[in-house]
């Protein structure tokens, strides 16, 4: 049982929950995630450990409410308990030892980039982050990332930072040279665009994949992704891979497996039929 200690809305559909998990807070590394099982009967869903406070024994989950399970989670309040959190899962991020890194975060992916930037900063790597959102209120983790290095903010409507996509800003920065590695996390189209940008430049690019998961321990094979024409289980071999080798079409396609179900679940939720529902 994991108590929710704090809750904060970060953007119109992204919520941060700080959850009691002392062991995880102590040993988590950049790039690792947990499987959250909110309650009996709930789905098991993977969420990145966006931050941790080993002193307080809490980890931060930053959740974009997209469907039933994420909505049920963000409907929880401080003082309530999440039944199970398993982790830290996945391989820790491959952090460079020195040099300059570019971290690109789109939407909730910015929260996934944050621990990577933290890790790099700790190693003494110079970090430049480019983060984006639709408009001002959709930009998250800007303050946290500013503490770790330079930050460029991009919004689609120009209401904050520069107007345009993160890829445009990334292109400029990369063209100027001096970037040793890129870490990109966000929606699949964004990661694919970044990878297409860095490929001709030959800049090593790491992406974090988000296939559907069940157990998170390598037992089901549901999270399989194709990288370099080979099958990998993202929960044990990933979730981070060399972006230049990832089959994004395949990932995108498999992510659509349950679309019809998701709509039904969300509908049941909205019409008040579901067991737990939105309170």
């Amino acid at each position, binding site marked *: 049982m994991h108590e929710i200690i704090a809750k904060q809305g970060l953007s119109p559909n992204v919520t941060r929950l700080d959850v009691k998990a002392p*062991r*995880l807070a102590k*040993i988590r590394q950049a790039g690792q995630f947990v*499987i959250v*099982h909110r309650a009996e*009967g*709930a*789905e*098991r869903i993977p969420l990145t450990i966006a931050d941790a406070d080993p002193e307080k024994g809490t980890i931060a989950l930053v959740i974009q409410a997209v469907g*039933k*399970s994420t909505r*049920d989670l963000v409907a929880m309040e401080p003082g309530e308990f999440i*039944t*199970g*959190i*398993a*982790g*830290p*899962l996945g391989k820790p991020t491959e952090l460079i030892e020195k040099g300059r890194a570019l971290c690109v975060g789109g939407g909730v992916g910015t929260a996934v980039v944050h621990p990577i930037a933290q890790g790099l900063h700790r190693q003494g790597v110079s970090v430049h982050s480019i983060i984006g959102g639709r408009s001002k209120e959709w930009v998250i983790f800007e303050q946290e990332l500013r503490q770790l290095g330079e930050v460029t903010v991009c919004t689609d409507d120009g209401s904050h930072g520069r107007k345009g996509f993160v890829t445009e800003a990334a292109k400029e920065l990369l063209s100027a040279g001096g970037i040793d590695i890129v870490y990109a996390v966000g929606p699949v189209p964004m990661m694919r665009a970044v990878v297409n940008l860095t490929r001709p430049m030959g800049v090593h690019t790491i992406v974090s994949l988000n296939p559907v998961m*069940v*157990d*998170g*321990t*390598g*037992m*089901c*094979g*549901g999270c*399989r992704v*194709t990288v370099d024409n080979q*099958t990998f289980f993202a929960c*044990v071999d990933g979730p981070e891979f060399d972006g230049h080798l990832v089959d994004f079409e*395949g990932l995108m*396609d*498999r992510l*659509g*497996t*349950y679309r019809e*179900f*998701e709509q*039904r*679940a969300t509908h*049941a939720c909205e019409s008040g*039929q*579901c*067991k737990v529902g939105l309170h």
Partner: protein
Amino acid sequence: MKIDRQKMSEQDPLQRSTNFGEVNLGLQEKVALLEAERCLQCRDPKCVSGCPVMVNIPQFLELLSEGNLAAAAQSLLNDNALPSVTGRVCPQETQCEIECIRGNKGLPVAVGYLERFVGDWARGNREQVPMQVAAPTGRKVAVAGAGPGGLTAAGELARRGHDVTIFEALHKPGGVLVYGIPEFRLPKAIVEDEVARLQQAGVKIVCNTVIGRTYTIQELREQFDAVFIANGAGLPVFMNVPGENFKGVYSANEYLTRVNLMSAYQFPQADTPVLVGRRVATVGGGNVAMDAARTAKRIGAEASIIVYRRTRKEMPARAEEIHHAEQEGIDFEFLVAPVEVIGDEKRWVTGLKCVRMQLGAPDASGRARPEIIPGSEFVIPCDVVVVSIGTRANPLLTATCPEMKLNKWGNIVVDENGMTNLPGVFAGGDIVRGAATVILAMGDGKRAAAAMDEYLKTAPPLGSQTV
């Protein structure tokens, strides 16, 4: 008086293929006593040597036939911690029952049914068969994995007075018994009962804890006097054919986990979905394949087809499961091997392209080797494919313990006591044997627990160990 082998009453096949209620309904006490009387009480009971854990079969059957259920249960439980489970899932026809002398003329004693009967009686009458727990020894033992291997070892260690903690990766203990084997063969309540019994005996169960990630084996060695690893063989093998990542292709583990552990069949009451499929093709011929194919029918498939590259005779599944599957209207395509998954333009599965096989010369395992018949390609139309061709050792735990000795398949190597090359670290079940059986995992758990008990008598106190 000649008594014939008693029959197990079953749920009607048509009716049961639409529900998850248990197929076998159990024996009435009268019937069980009658069947037990069929045992000839052999002086040299062959049945016992057929059982991997040497259950004293004539003893518990004699007590049963006398109507002394408490004593029968005690006798059985001394040899086998989970009789309600093994009575349901053991391949009796190739173990205890095949050796039964009664089988030479007529049918063997129904050891499995009777084991189930006595096990179930014991579950309902716990106070008459209490677990005797020795005085605390002050020794702490960790168990990784709450499958049949881990649960058995934990029980045996707790009985000997050790302080046992089981760490389980999933949110529920039971291993394959809860995520793999479906309700209609093994009701979850049985596993829950067994777990509760262990907890009453003082065993602590910590779920959502992945050894190798949450704690390493090294950390467990620092905090516990001994460790038993029973994390199973949960790494699904895929066919490696084109189209295997189309939407609608599942490993049997994923398919069964969604339906059993996550109750997807109750969607949207339960949150986890599963693709039901109008026509489901399951590739493989083991218990796992039978479970997947029978599950498909139960959650609503119109047709559920088993695709197996040898013949019925070579199928490794329990005879009873094959028989039940046939009764339930599962179709079988024998001597057929898949070569490709076919999909539509949106990459949804539409069929399984296969070739026909013929049996050639025997292979290393002595089974006839299937060979492709040239030009025999055909397509089985289907919208879900369940791949059930086996599992390998899950590397997650062992990868974080490089000093532990593994064989070339990644299984942990142990000595005759079940100890790994690391002093005080024992292992058993599927992670040692490769995908095997429930009773073998339990046997390993029991043997290792005895060896661990011996080890703990002389082991250095906690904190003084070196690597």
